[in-house]
């Protein structure tokens, strides 16, 4: 007996309320964007420069004492937060201390770190420094730039690929879905103020890749069915295609989610934000390939008359799966 996540044959109508779904998605994007503008992201030192120190001690973390110890050093903005993880025992207390980039100081001062460590050792003699990371303001500015370029490049490359492989309406649908996913992910990070660092950019790009993977599988079926059911209208063809690929969509999203949940729970606190971004991305990506990408395709319409020469006829991919 097989486990079936969705019935063997489904005939659900995904586009009965397509305007409503598009509206909700648009609203969510606006909310995410406004949150990003108003609240901003909780940038890690990769993007705004500064120093983070991860401390570990057998005795409990006293955030107030740490703060008092660092006060005389006049370092400007200091954030001290305790890190909790189910895998830590009672004798393992972890805190993250973040110190802002010191003004007009390109290079990172070793003295400063030594001073901080000395000050903390005074209030908590058994403290150890599990990691110390400093990024100068010069590099962090460049890192932001590179990150934005990387995301834009990825989206651009994908736009071109789908355009070549399908038609421009598909490319627009897929890319809008991607923008939707990226925006919503940024929105969640801004809303929950989760630390946004370089690894999150990697996660964002993976989401781009994954969401696309999903969209492309649906589109591939749409292309096939457009030829198969020449007489049916586009809405019907889209519905058939999504229903046919639904079982696969759910299976793949679930296996990936399963793997990520394991990583989220057991992978340790260092990587949790990164895994969270990917889990959220898979959720949003699966949703968007149906309710955004396909809905936009429906809205834009597709050229159906295949007897006339069209844009895809001449290029190298035209008959790859004939």
């Amino acid at each position, binding site marked *: 007996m097989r486990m079936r996540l969705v019935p063997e044959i489904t005939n659900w109508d995904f586009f009965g309320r397509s305007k409503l779904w598009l509206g909700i998605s648009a609203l969510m994007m606006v909310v995410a964007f406004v949150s990003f503008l108003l609240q901003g992201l909780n940038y890690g030192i990769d993007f705004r420069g500064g120093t983070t120190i991860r401390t570990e001690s057998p005795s409990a973390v006293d955030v107030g004492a740490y703060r008092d110890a660092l006060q005389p050093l006049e370092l400007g903005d200091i954030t001290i937060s305790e890190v909790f993880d189910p895998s830590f025992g009672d004798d393992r207390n972890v805190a993250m201390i973040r110190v802002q980039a010191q003004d007009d100081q390109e290079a990172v001062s*070793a003295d400063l770190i030594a001073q901080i460590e000395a000050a903390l050792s005074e209030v908590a003699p058994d403290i150890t420094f599990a990691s110390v990371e*400093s990024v100068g303001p010069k590099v962090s500015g460049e890192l932001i730039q590179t990150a934005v370029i990387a995301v834009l*490049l990825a989206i651009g490359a994908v736009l071109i690929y789908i355009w070549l492989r399908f038609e421009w309406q598909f490319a627009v649908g897929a890319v809008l879905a991607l923008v939707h996913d990226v925006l919503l992910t940024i929105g969640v990070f801004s809303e929950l103020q989760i630390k946004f660092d370089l690894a999150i950019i990697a996660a964002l790009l993976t989401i781009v890749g994954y969401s696309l993977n999903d969209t492309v599988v649906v589109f591939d079926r749409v292309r096939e069915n457009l030829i198969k059911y020449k007489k049916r209208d586009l809405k019907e063809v889209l519905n058939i295609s999504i229903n046919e690929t639904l079982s696969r969509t759910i*299976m793949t999203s679930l296996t990936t989610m399963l793997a990520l949940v394991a990583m989220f729970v*057991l992978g340790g606190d260092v990587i949790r934000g990164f895994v969270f971004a*990917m889990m959220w991305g898979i959720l949003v990506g699966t949703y968007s390939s149906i309710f955004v990408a396909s809905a936009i395709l429906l809205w834009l319409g597709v050229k159906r008359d295949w007897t006339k020469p069209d844009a895809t006829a001449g290029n190298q991919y035209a008959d790859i799966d004939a």
Partner: protein
Amino acid sequence: MLQIDLWKRILIWGIVALGVFLALPNAFYTRVETHNDAVTAIERQGATPEREAVAAGWPSFLPSGLVNLGLDLRGGAHLLAEVQVEDVYAQRLEALWPEVRDALRPERDTVGTIRLQPSGPMELRIRISQPDGMARALEVVRGLAQPVVSLTGAGETDLAVSGDGDEIVVRLSEAERQATDERTVRQSLEIIRRRIDEVGTREPTIQRQGSDRILIQVPGIGSAAELKEIIGTTAQLTFQPVVGRGASANDSPGIGNEILPSLDEEGVFYELEQAPVVTGEELVDAQPSYDQNGRPAVSFRFNPAGARKFGDYTAENIGNPFAIVLDDEVISAPVIQSHIPGGSGIITGNFSVEESTNLAVLLRAGALPAGLEFLEERTIGPELGQDSIDAGKIATVVAFSAVLVFMFLSYGLFGIFANIALILNIALLFGLLSLIGATLTLPGIAGIVLTVGMAVDANVLVFERIREELRTAKGPARAIELGYEKALSAIVDANLTTIITATILFAMGSGPVRGFAITLGLGIITSVFTAIFVTRLMIVIWFGRTRPKTIEV
């Protein structure tokens, strides 16, 4: 029908076997690692019975390539340094002054007396007392220019000489500056590498990044500060003529001279000629030793060119003091007692034994041509790395088992085929990673976990398609064939787009992010291979043996 040529079968199994073979050392990580260390030690320092014994711990006919663990997993220090390439321009121009002086001296009748003017770091200004002779003076100075040695700057000379009133302005040409930058960064890279090698740590990464940056990652070192001590000092050694000795840094030095503090004696300053007689670049060896009073010192030897210059200078200046300068501090300023012809000497100062040993190492490795500015530094403790490895291992195993169970529940026998392929996929991935010597980082582990989740996608696409084809009742063999055929375009499209993003990540990212891009990209390649070829081969073999009338997927 369902046929796969024999040669294809052999090729597929061959690739799988090769992947597993290459991945094998990773299953015995510590053992292979100590074996590799022992082998390197034997190569470098000769064989000892202990080293031979350790080396024999892993058979030499087996591959010994391992997946490197990134800093976030192993602990260590990471530095991003920017080479201050402008430093070199000033040095070049300083060294040019004696040459210009000697070239203009015979032309005194037309240009008059020549004088070095205070000049910025990017230029050399020389005043001539007869501005009418400017044309001739410029011609003579331009004659000193050399063709630029570089590919892009071919046909250009290294100096840009112009006249400004009664002053000659000498600058480095644009082409020369580029060529100099290139040389400076390469030289710095090489010297940093030598210094780190002298200390002897395992698998350091020393890479150039962008035009003037160097990334240094050393696993296993205590802290970034420690690493900076090894590579942070320029160790620029020069021997300069002493003009005078004073007690203040604010005395205005004569033109072409500079005031430098003494290293040991507080409040003592020397006025020195800026252009050195000999520099550390001309050293061939430096060793820690002791002076005649038994105090730690460093003995050195010059190459023939340096020895000649040193010999000539000492012969001409007996009785004059002479300064040994390290990184703009005067170590000592002995008086030249006699002509020193052999090109070897000894540096004395208030050294401890450790300091003299360190100085010898730095001098031997050579001076950094320019200063370094550190833009980024990270220290990751070994315990944190170990924690991450442990957590990553558990997470991977759990993720893996969950997916295996899930696939079996959903697709039965076909699920088992997919599961075998998934296990082989991981082996292939590790084989590939070991083969190219890739570095595994914490996000890289997440990449593997993600690959595990997504690797089944290709199989799921095929299996779902087979199910669909079975519904239209074409018979099992035809359904399997059609399933593979029709799912192919979706598999190719879906994975190609992910490859595109992985490539962009690899190109734009650095460190951990790059590690993630590598595992993601390679994971896609291996998973498509195992899904399209390995699973299919297993299904074909099974189908050929049993010839079932109906199949359930």
